Structures are given as C-alpha cells and as structure tokens.
C-alpha cells in the first residue's frame, strides 16, 4: 500500500518535470519580480538601518526565499482537483482502492519536490550571487528550515484541498479561488514581512494559517525568534486543516450523485 503512494509521489515529480520550457519561463518571472521586490522593500532603510528587526540583508533574504517558495507551495492555489469534481471524473478517483486525500497529497509532494529542485534553488542562487543573504549558520537551523518547508507544503496542500472541495457544492467555485489568490500573498507574508505591519494586524494575520506557508520558514531561515514555536504553529495547522479536509470530503462523498450511465 505504501509502495503505491510512493509511486504517486514519483508520478507527481515526473508529471511536473516534463514541461521544461514552462519551468524556465516561470523561473524568469520569479527572478525578475525578485529583483524588483528587493528594490521596493529596501526603500524602508532610507532613514534607519533596522526596521522591525529586519536589516537590508535579512530583507533581501526574505524576498529571495519567498520568490523560491512561490511555486513550491503554489501560493495562488490550483484548480486541478476541483476541475475533476466539476467534470465528474472524481467518481473514478473515488472508486480507486486508495484514500483520496492521501493520494492527492502524495502527488502534490512529488510536484513540490520537483519545484524545490528547480524553482526554489535557482532564485536562491541568483539571490546569493547578487545580494548579501542571511542564511542559516548551523546544521540545526538548516534542518529546522527543511522541516518548516515540508510543513509549509503540507499546510498549503490542506488549504488547496479544502478550497477545491467547495466544487462539490458550488458549480462555479473559481470565484472563491480568485478571492483566495487575492489575499494569500499579503497574509502568507510573501508581499511584505508581516513584522512590518502594525501590532493589531500582526496578531490577526498570525491567527490565520497563511503565515505557516511562507513567513514561518523564512523566519526560521533568517533567524528571527526560536524555531520551535514556529514549527509548532505550522504543525498545529497541518493537523487541523488535514482533519477538516477529511471531514468535508466525507460529507461531500455522501451527497455526491454521478449523472449518466
């Protein structure tokens, strides 16, 4: 059984590694935006050398790790699974002797591992070449960072799974996806460090699962605060959101009626 999920991980990896030129194009966009976002965020240091615990080096590191994570955690969401619900292909998926959520997660882990290899490392290397980055200085920090990225992928998967499940109830659930895409950039801490926000907004944003996707791994990498509470925040959201996904899936399959014969 486990072997089957491992094959799904490999399949996910292979599926996304097929489109090389599309990958290069996506990379080019991430890198161009990386350079521009560095210039934008560095303007806050015109008057002071430190802003909310960030210095210029940590700020550019924030940008390049964020640009690298975009494709790894699919920050703007994806609609593949929802499309299968809409078209009815989901019936075939449910007939398979596999746990649907686990199977989709396995495929997503495969996709994310390819994204880590191709879409994460290149922006980071370009950042290292042109800027002075602040990266983890000990093996322990690197391990914590790796663990944090894995948890970020799990949280992002759990959110995308829940969003796509809405397709069971709404014929056109894409409006909801576009709302999610519109707020995720700021809430996840991709657009601007959450620490730059006023106090009340920081508390509100950290009460959502979104910072677990981008800001938490970045904080661990640049050494803002201790790693354990951040990892605990991420793990808590993984458990809550995956459980919610199972619950909603169970409700969805109960009401599912497939048309046609």
């Amino acid at each position, binding site marked *: 059984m486990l072997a089957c999920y491992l094959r799904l991980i490999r399949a996910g990896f292979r599926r996304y590694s097929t489109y090389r030129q599309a990958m290069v194009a996506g990379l080019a966009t991430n890198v161009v935006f990386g350079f521009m976002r560095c210039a934008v965020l560095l*303007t806050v240091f015109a008057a002071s050398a430190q802003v909310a615990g960030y210095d210029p080096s940590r700020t550019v590191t924030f940008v390049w790790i964020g640009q690298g994570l975009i494709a790894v955690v699919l920050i703007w969401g994806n609609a593949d699974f929802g499309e299968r619900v809409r078209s009815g292909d989901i019936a075939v998926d449910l007939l398979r002797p596999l746990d649907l959520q686990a199977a989709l997660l396995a495929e997503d882990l495969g996709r994310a591992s390819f994204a880590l290899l191709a879409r994460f490392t290149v922006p980071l290397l370009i950042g290292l070449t042109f800027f002075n980055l602040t990266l983890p200085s000990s093996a322990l920090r690197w391990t914590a960072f790796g663990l944090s990225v894995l948890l970020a992928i799990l949280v992002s998967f759990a959110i995308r799974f829940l969003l796509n499940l809405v397709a069971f109830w709404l014929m056109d659930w894409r409006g909801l996806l*576009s709302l999610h*895409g519109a707020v995720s950039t700021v809430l996840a801490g991709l657009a601007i460090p959450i620490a730059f926000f006023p106090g009340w907004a920081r508390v509100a944003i950290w009460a959502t699962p979104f910072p677990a996707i981008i800001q938490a791994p970045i904080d661990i990498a640049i050494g803002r605060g201790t790693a354990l509470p951040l990892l605990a925040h991420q793990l808590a959201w993984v458990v809550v959101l995956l459980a919610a996904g199972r619950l909603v899936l169970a409700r969805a399959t109960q009401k599912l009626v497939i048309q046609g014969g």
Partner: protein
Amino acid sequence: MVYRSLLAASVRSQLAYPASFALQCTGQALLQLQNMVVILVLFSRVGEMGGFTRQEALLIFSLAGISFGLADMLVGPLDTLGRLVRTGTLDALLLRPLSAMAQICASDFALRRLGAIGTAFAVLGYVLATSDISWTPLRVAVLLITPLTGLVLFGAVWVAASATTFWLVEGSELPNAVTYGSGLFTSYPVSIFSGWLLRLMAFVVPGAFVAYYPALAILGKPDPLGLPTVLQYSAPLVAVLAAGVAALAWRAGLRHYVGTGS
C-alpha cells in the same frame, strides 16, 4: 460589427453566473487593494520613497493601476497565444476574414477586471481630493490623457511580448515577466530602482511613461532621476512609437508562424 457581437457574447457568458462574477470582481478589487496595502505599510515605516511622499506615490500607483487594468482587460487574453499555437486553434482563427489579434482578445474579454480598475479609480479620486495640486489646463490635460497613453503603452508591451511566443512556443509564459513585471514596476516611483533594472523596465520597456512621468507633470515636480523635464510630457509620443514597434513585432511573428504541424 462582428467584433461587437463577439464581445457581447463574451460579456453575456460572464454574466451568466452573477454570483460567481461578483466574487471574481471582488477578487480583482482585493488584488488591487493588496498592492496598495504593501505601499501603505511601507510608508508606515518610512517618510518618503524615491523622493515621493505617500500621496504622490499613491498617485503613481492609481494611474498605473487604471492603465494596467484596462490593458489586462483588452489584450490580456493574448496570454493564451501559446496554447492556441500548440493546439492549432490559431489556424482556425487565421482562416477567418478577421484580425487574429482582435479575435483572441474578444474571445476572453475579462469584464471582471472592472473590479481592479474601479479600485484604482477610487484611489485616484481619494488622492486628488486630499492632495494640494495647483491645477493648470496643461496638468488637467495630462491627467485626462494618462489612462489612455498608459493603456496604449501596456497594450504595446503586451502585444510585443506575446509576439515572442511565435518563436518560443513552449515558453509562452515568458512574456509574463515583462507584462506583469511592468504592472508591478510602474506602480512604484521608478526612481527607487537603479542600474540595468531601471534602464530595462523604465526606458527599453517604456514603463516610466505609464505613470511616473505623467505624475511628475501633474505634481509639477522635478525628476528625482535628474532627466530633462520634456520627458514628463512625452508619454503620448512614446505611446505611439511603442504601438508602432508592437505592430511590427506582431506582424513579423505572424509571418514567421507556420503552424506546429502534426
């Protein structure tokens, strides 16, 4: 005439699900607001950005937002060109006695962008109401013509960038770096950028003329980059030139196109 029915059909299909359309409009408005939040948060930490105060930066942001939203609505569907070439759908469009570009743009006319455009207009209204600008007929004229010149400039960038797809079929997302990149670049004072990024995105891709120079003209402000004042009034001329270059690029692309074959 035919274009009008194509557009009407596209609009009707989008309004078929009113609730979903409202959500998508809201999503577009939120996207624009989110970009503004970034600017506001930055200004809560620093007094000026590239020589611009918060109000002045918001003027640039709103002008760029209006032009980008309009261009995205009118020529954004060119992003699908790669798919049309790969699937051979483009051949069908070319067989019809209509412009291929107009057909592509009319097919996926995204009315939901009105959410982003409306938000940008609201920000512009707020900035104009709360800023102390000494209006002259010339400055009013610049303000009125800027959304249009910005639309032509973004449109030219979009068309020229998309035309590269005729050569790089599989890299059809490559234009995004320039089109959406210009969207981000032009919404900030270009004086915060420097080096190759400034030269490329402000002058080779004429991003500085979308909102930055018109805003300087409206505010009666000297250019922090120290370039001649005449640039502040040259956006219409640059827009015409850019449109010419884009038209040539598109024609060259179409002439190069021989289908993907099977």
